[in-house]
């Protein structure tokens, strides 16, 4: 009876449960979690908004001078990301020419209203 023996073994050993939230669950380095955009690096090219499959990213007006490949250029817009829409595919990160937008290995959000928007958090 392998079931019975394993049951009794479990009964007298420590459970495998991670006592979240008291204990943290390890999140690996490459985890695609909450999305964020570095405002000082974004050149406002709209590429992320074009590739986003969930239409989570819209471009909003935010004129500013940014450094890009050694040149200083004036950008007109920056992305505004509806956090609840994000499907964590990482396409924006993959296609960003300026390495500005990233999915960081952190937990995402929950709440009662849907208007949580990320503009610049890095």
């Amino acid at each position, binding site marked *: 009876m392998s079931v019975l023996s394993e049951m009794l073994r479990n009964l007298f050993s420590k*459970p*495998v*449960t*991670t*006592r*979240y*939230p008291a204990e943290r*669950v390890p*999140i690996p380095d490459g985890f695609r979690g*909450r999305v964020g955009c570095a405002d000082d690096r974004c050149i406002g090219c709209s590429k992320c908004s074009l590739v986003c*499959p*969930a*239409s*989570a990213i819209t471009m909003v007006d935010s004129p500013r001078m940014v450094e890009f490949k050694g040149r200083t250029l004036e950008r007109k817009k920056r992305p505004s990301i*509806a*956090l*609840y*829409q*994000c*499907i*964590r*595919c990482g396409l924006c990160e993959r296609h960003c020419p300026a390495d500005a937008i990233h999915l960081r290995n952190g*937990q*995402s*959000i*929950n*709440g*009662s*209203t*849907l208007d*949580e928007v990320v503009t610049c958090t890095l």
Partner: protein
Amino acid sequence: MTVSNRTFSGRLMTWARGKSPWVTIFNSGGCNACDIEIIACLMPRFDVERFGILSRGSPRHADILIVTGAVTRQQAPRLRRVWEQMPEPKYVIAVGACAAGGGVFQGLYHMVGSVDQVIPVDVFVAGCPPRPDEIINAVVTCLGLMAEDAVHGGRAWRTKATSEAVAEAIA
């Protein structure tokens, strides 16, 4: 079924509601991913029975309805009916990007859209799919809302507070 927070029995009831949230899971037309992550919460690794959470088959026994996935046209009446079958006080958690706003499926011809177009939602969870620990966070948020609602005597205060805030913003 609102209870007064001043009497002993009322406080006992509030305590019991916070300690024993039974859930029922409803897939309103999603891709399964959120469902298996929710079931993963019930499993030894996360074991939400520590918080008294049990998964019940009958919506009549449930306190929290966990909805996953974007709502399809065929599932929308079902979702509404399941929600109506639940006894008060009832809460709804919409899990995943699809439930919150349609996610990758928004605008398709057979989609109604987000869950809150069909039933009132108390907590949204972001992610596609959210990790189990994020789902546990959402349940904790929902339990916090339950406790606050007990103080205010029902969930009406939240919609009122929102509309007041909107009115102030306009003025």
